[in-house]
């Protein structure tokens, strides 16, 4: 089977399956402003900031490639702006159900050995963590 068929036929995105998704650049250059005003691209400074928020160390040489990969994905995601969502409630659950409540009682516990068994460092059933207060 020709999984690369779409590509040969020059479909928009190099997806290999030729689904009609314009390349991210098509979104980035289009003149028509999306309904919700958004800058659908990130720069290196934003990537550094997001990495910090996510507590992920990122090497200097990895910042720009990450910016490019994320911009590719964000550009593709931008098509959501075409959808009319006026008056639509955000969906947070698939099957409508009421939040179950239970008695506020202790149902488990008293197992400090089990709780700390997987800790990278522990001592006398306490987690040993790096110094927090200088």
């Amino acid at each position, binding site marked *: *089977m020709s999984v690369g068929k779409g590509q040969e036929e020059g479909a928009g995105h190099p*997806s290999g399956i030729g689904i009609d998704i314009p390349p991210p650049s098509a979104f980035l250059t289009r003149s028509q402003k999306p309904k919700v005003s958004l800058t659908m691209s990130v720069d290196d400074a934003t990537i550094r900031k*997001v990495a910090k928020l*996510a507590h992920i160390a990122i090497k200097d040489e990895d910042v720009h490639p990450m910016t490019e990969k994320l911009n590719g*994905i964000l550009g593709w*995601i931008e*098509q*959501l702006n075409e959808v009319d969502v006026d008056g639509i409630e*955000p*969906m947070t659950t698939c099957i409508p159900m009421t939040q179950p409540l239970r008695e506020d009682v202790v149902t488990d516990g008293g197992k400090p050995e089990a709780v700390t068994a997987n800790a990278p460092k522990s001592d006398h059933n306490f987690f040993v963590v790096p110094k927090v207060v200088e």
Partner: protein
Amino acid sequence: MDTATLATDLLDLTLADALEALKAKKISATELTEAYITAMEGGRALNAYTTETPDKAREMAKASDARLAKGEAGLLEGIPLGIKELFCTEGVETNAGSKILKGFVPPYESTVTQNLWDAGAVMLGKLNMDEFAMGSSNETSAFGPVANPWRAQGSNGTFTPGGSSGGSASAVAGLMCLGATGSDTGGSIRQPAAFTGTVGIKPTYGRCSRFGMVAFASSLDQAGPITRTVKDSALMLQAMCGHDEKDSTSLTAEVPNFAASCGKSIKGMKIGIPKEYRMDGMPAEIETLWSQGIAWLKDAGAEIVDVSLPHTKYALPCYYIIAPAEASSNLARYDGMRFGYRAEGKTLAEVYQNTRSEGFGEEVKRRVMIGTYVLSAGYYDAYYLRALKVRRRIAQDFDEVFKSVDALLTPSTPSAAFQLGERSADPISMYLNDIFTVTGNLAGLPGISVPAGLDAQGLPLGLQVLGRALDEETVFAVGSALERAAGFAAKPEKWW
């Protein structure tokens, strides 16, 4: 009969056949388990199992034989299963395919696996997967990719079994277990099933408890089985399902006898064919297979109805906001303090950052970054809130069509299995694997993939049946009608 022949015959039994043979005392759970331990150990080249638990399997099989002797057989008594790496198993490493959880030994059991053991099933070991279930080819696993037992004709290349439940699909297709647990957030049960000529079902969201499942995107994650036949999936799913007060999204609905729906007539049923799933540039073989599936269901007495799901094309971009957003929140717990990998650092912040940088793979880091970005101040409304609204539009499309049809028929995947390395450079081309399956996750609907034929290269292709919420029974009925008509009997040639 010599032992070798007997062992092969044992492996040829389906899960349903094995249950009957066990109950009729034609075979013992111990014999069956030994045959699978041998197959598992002989199949290491596929890298499907990350941890083998033969001693535990023998012990469980012995207990099964004792229960069978007393006539106290459970629903899956004596059936050897493989368990995806993200189901916590007490005393057995559970690493979700990640370096950050390497060596993590849960002190508790997931509800789904507990349900399986309570039904008498036997654990053979843990199965490889994409890291934190983020991937469609098993290539993001920290423990190496899994090989598909299937290869294109005349090729000695290694093909992906799909993902993220790649180890599960490979182990079932390679006859290294009778069934395996999987989990499906965007297609991670149905896509690997399609790539390996096996059956996989994702039930309605909330049917299976998520307690003890390593979380990826909690509003989408749902467990389900991968097996050889539709009936086998029905039997296994029944044992996995059920209300659990440890998961607040677990449904209280009764679990029907799913196996009773297999083989039921579909005469007079209305089957919808969503026109938006016929995509430009779709490989001709997928088109042909789909048309064939339509013809099969027509022959079985179903009425075919053209329907429209207008928001289909927005499902994947919508998913790639919601899933990373939930993942960035769920994966915040991996900080190197209470469990898992811990890296060195000069300050506490550096310890966190280095731990997560070294412990997570590239795809996981990418998704955590996207999730953090779309949830960050100033972008939440534009990305996340908007995606939740689009999600409702997608769900409403289904509500509308299910007023007039009983189930939908679509292809499972836009292509057959591809070779390892072929798509790993471009994230979006990898994401497109889930184009036909992801809608079922966003709307919470049950979906099954049934093997329906081979492509020109001799690789399996699957068809998907989507049903109404909580109507797995219709999904099983239509799925087994497809299975009967397709008569899929091809097997991968053993090269491993």
